[in-house]
């Protein structure tokens, strides 16, 4: 279990704990930073725009201590307000049975990074009681929201997985989960910053992919599925290679494999990776 589970899981994976999808519909004044994550513009909280500009400067300067300090301070804030974690399709579908209501909405990341027009960009899912008052943040929910039944949401989630998007849970005021994303590199700010700057705003999932080298036929069906630069073909042996250390456990490669040659292991069953979030 990751540190979020230990704190908010109640013996379960934290994002399968229904408590983390519940929130009051009325406002309770709170002290400290958690309040800002809950009530300010949800996308602004923890998106870390200014942080990344600083991070790029620190990276260019070569000052590792500076870089570490920026990340530490930013993450201390983000872990109280807004961060994400990769989940498998299975877990995603379980969440759709727990959380309600469910809406489709635009992806802020792809708007920021590619300027994608809202009508082509309904790839995020807003969830929970916050969706009853989405109109409070018209800029975040550009183009409005589209309410879905759980069945429609599941079909849509499976379509997204099939098309090759990584699925994540997203916190808005820890531990309240207010969104589910369908992400990719480099369009997703969280995936991009995690891979390019090792900024742990996005946590790895509870699973890790492992290739069975006996079963792999070298058909290459899985290539192109990984959004985390963790999958390639070992040309000399003609087998798929998963960098397990770098794997986020999304499971996209597995559903593309026709030979059942990739399995998804519990991260905790692997002593070398159990603390690698």
């Amino acid at each position: 279990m990751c540190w979020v589970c230990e704190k908010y899981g109640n013996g379960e994976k934290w994002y399968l704990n229904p408590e983390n999808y519940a929130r009051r519909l009325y406002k309770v004044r709170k002290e400290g930073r958690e309040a800002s994550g809950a009530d300010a513009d949800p996308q602004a909280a923890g998106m870390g725009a200014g942080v990344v500009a600083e991070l790029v400067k620190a990276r260019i300067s070569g000052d590792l201590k500076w870089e570490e300090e920026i990340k530490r301070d930013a993450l201390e804030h983000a872990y109280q307000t807004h961060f994400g974690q990769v989940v498998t399709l299975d877990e995603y579908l379980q969440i759709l049975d727990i959380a309600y209501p469910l809406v489709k909405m635009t992806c802020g990341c792809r708007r920021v990074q590619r300027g994608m027009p809202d009508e082509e960009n309904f790839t995020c899912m807003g969830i929970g009681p916050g969706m009853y008052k989405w109109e409070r943040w018209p800029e975040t929910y550009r183009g409005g929201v589209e309410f879905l039944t759980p069945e429609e949401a599941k079909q849509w989630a499976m379509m997204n997985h099939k098309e090759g998007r990584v699925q994540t849970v997203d916190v808005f005021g820890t531990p309240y989960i207010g969104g589910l994303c369908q992400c990719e590199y480099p369009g997703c700010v969280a995936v991009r910053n995690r891979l390019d700057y090792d900024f742990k705003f996005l946590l790895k999932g509870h699973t890790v992919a492992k290739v069975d080298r006996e079963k792999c036929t070298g058909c290459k069906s899985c290539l192109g599925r990984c959004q985390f630069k963790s999958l390639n073909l070992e040309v000399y042996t003609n087998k798929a290679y998963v960098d397990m250390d770098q794997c986020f456990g999304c499971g996209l490669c597995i559903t593309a494999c026709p030979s059942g040659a990739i399995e998804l292991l519990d991260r905790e069953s692997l002593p070398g990776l159990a603390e690698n979030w």
Partner: protein
Amino acid sequence: MIAQIKINFDLCKDPLLCRQCLSVCPSVVFVCGPTKIWKGRETDPQEYRIFGRYLDKCSGCGDCVKVCPTGAVDLGFLPKEQLAQRYQEERIAQLKERNS
């Protein structure tokens, strides 16, 4: 060398609807964000601004300059050592201020 990207905001008037540079960039160096958040309505596309953010990822291919319909993108380069020194000085000043 590290890219230095300047956008002339007098020429770049409609960034979110135009989005040519955002769309063409092979390294996703640009970001665009709203300069104003309104109560009760969406921010106008014209109130967005584009910045070169991931400057250390820029290859210098120049496609953004070519594709810009108003010539608003200025792409230059500085030696990495020179920039590194500038930022190290910024950092020293930052630490000094913090400890004073």
